[in-house]
């Protein structure tokens, strides 16, 4: 039985993660915001072998789905279609596309907790959000490679976390499991790991150092439970 993965969002990140998935031998199902024909050519050229479907059909095909759409659009996702799925949340708040939005930058929680609260019947795991898309492409390396970089994985459902850790490994990175979904605040823009491209032990140290950063201090002040 081959491995399968779905991706929602065929932009910069979605196509790169799709390329890593194909390289790792996954069957890839990808959907955009509208009609599949809109992204068909992009997928045909950038992700040969991947199948373009509507978001709904993607959810039917696989139980493991990456979110690679603008965070500000998370409420356009269907709660029902994504029920009981393991969801890899790779989204970040990016004011250039999301505009001013205090909900998405709230330091008292992680944006992945928002996504989980919305997708209430899914198991949300945060991963792949803290490395730029071209670095994800350039830095992916086979297991055991000396220079292999790490990707942090956080989530509340341990089985789902283990499954996503395996995906991270398959895609070419050392998975670093770091606790509950609320710990996702440590991986978001403004944290020391964001865009830093670190190896396992350095990533671990950088995740732990979050409390000493400006955003970390603000998170403690706001009573963020991940800081306790």
């Amino acid at each position: 039985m081959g491995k399968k993965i779905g991706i929602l969002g065929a932009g910069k990140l979605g196509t790169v993660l799709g390329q890593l998935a194909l390289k790792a031998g996954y069957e890839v199902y990808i959907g955009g915001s509208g009609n599949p024909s809109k992204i068909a050519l992009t997928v045909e050229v950038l992700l040969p072998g991947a199948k373009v479907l509507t978001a709904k059909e993607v959810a039917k095909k696989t139980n493991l789905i990456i979110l690679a759409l603008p965070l500000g659009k998370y409420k356009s996702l269907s709660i029902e279609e994504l029920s009981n799925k393991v969801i890899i949340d790779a989204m970040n708040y990016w004011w250039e596309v999301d505009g001013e939005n205090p909900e998405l930058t709230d330091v008292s929680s992680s944006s992945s907790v928002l996504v989980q609260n919305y997708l209430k019947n899914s198991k949300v795991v945060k991963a792949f959000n803290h490395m730029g898309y071209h670095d994800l492409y350039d830095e992916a390396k086979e297991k055991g490679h000396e220079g292999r970089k790490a990707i942090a994985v956080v989530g509340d459902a341990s089985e789902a976390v283990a499954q996503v850790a395996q995906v991270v490994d398959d895609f070419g990175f050392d998975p670093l499991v770091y606790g509950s979904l609320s710990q996702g605040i440590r991986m978001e823009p403004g944290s020391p790991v964001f865009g830093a491209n670190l190896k396992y032990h350095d990533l671990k140290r950088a995740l732990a150092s979050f409390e000493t950063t400006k955003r970390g201090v603000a998170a403690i002040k706001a009573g963020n439970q991940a800081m306790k």
Partner: protein
Amino acid sequence: MINTKKMIFGLDSFGDIPTDDEGNVYTQAHAIRQVIREAKLADDLGIDVIALGEHHREEYAISSPDMVLAAIATITKKIKLATGVTVLSSDDPVRVYERFATLEAISNGRAEAVLGRGSFTESFPLFGYDLQDYDLLFEEKLNLYSKLLEEKPVTWEGKTRASLKDANVFPKTENGNIATRIAVGGSPESVVRTARYGFPLTLAIIGGSPERFKPYIELYKRAADKFENPAFPIAVHSHGMIADTDEEAIELAWNHIRKSFVKIGNDRGWAPMSREQFESEVQNGSFYVGSPETVAKRLARMIKTLGIGRFELVYGAGGLSASAREHMIELYATKVIPRVRELLSEA
């Protein structure tokens, strides 16, 4: 495959603020005059294109690139006068047409509009646009702009600006067309759109391995084919630092290019670029840094790998001194470009 004689080389500036040799920072007004001086130098030395970006930020002096280009037009002879980019989403297509048609007149046909969504978004709140609409704004405005390019009365309707009915827009150009390209970052959808409208494509490659863009070029060609539009030679724009020796160039790049990346990245929540990340950009990534020979070799390799027709060197990021900037332009024109042509013809 690459026609080495036809390969076009350009310089790109955002209007970074230089210093003098003692480290005194230029005023923004002086920074603009410095760019005009550099464009004249570039023209004298035979560089093909100067492209000026539009920014609305403290670190950059140029917010009205076409005005600066108009000044350059009057003191230069051959150099092509491009923007890099004109942020069409927060501009008005009629105005854009009018300004470039005017520049085209002043420069005797050397104007080139390079349109994009821009990598910064300060212009949105400044001109009263909502970032959430960034895609619709660009799509609609490009649609109107491409109609205006036909230089006939235009009738147009959309959500993002007032409708036009048989609107005739002036001045008309002598060639009947304003050279126009679209510059994109990494969004596949923007690549497809460029091909759909039948414009040439500029890839802004500001980090990572340039080879990664090969599939994007394929996507552009395939999309052009599908929409039955011509696929024009691709341009690439990347940062660089050229000095007499590798050591000197690397030090300058670390102190200036990296500095500007750290500053800009900081606003977006990125951790500061590490030495390892910097070195990898210099060795295999998208910073073209070193002596003329080193830079020429890396450029020739990238040009060959991607099969592009035009390269634009972004110079002067992060408060580099005016004298270092001018020296870089000289080295680029007199050593790097001829050497790249030579390396390409050897292949």
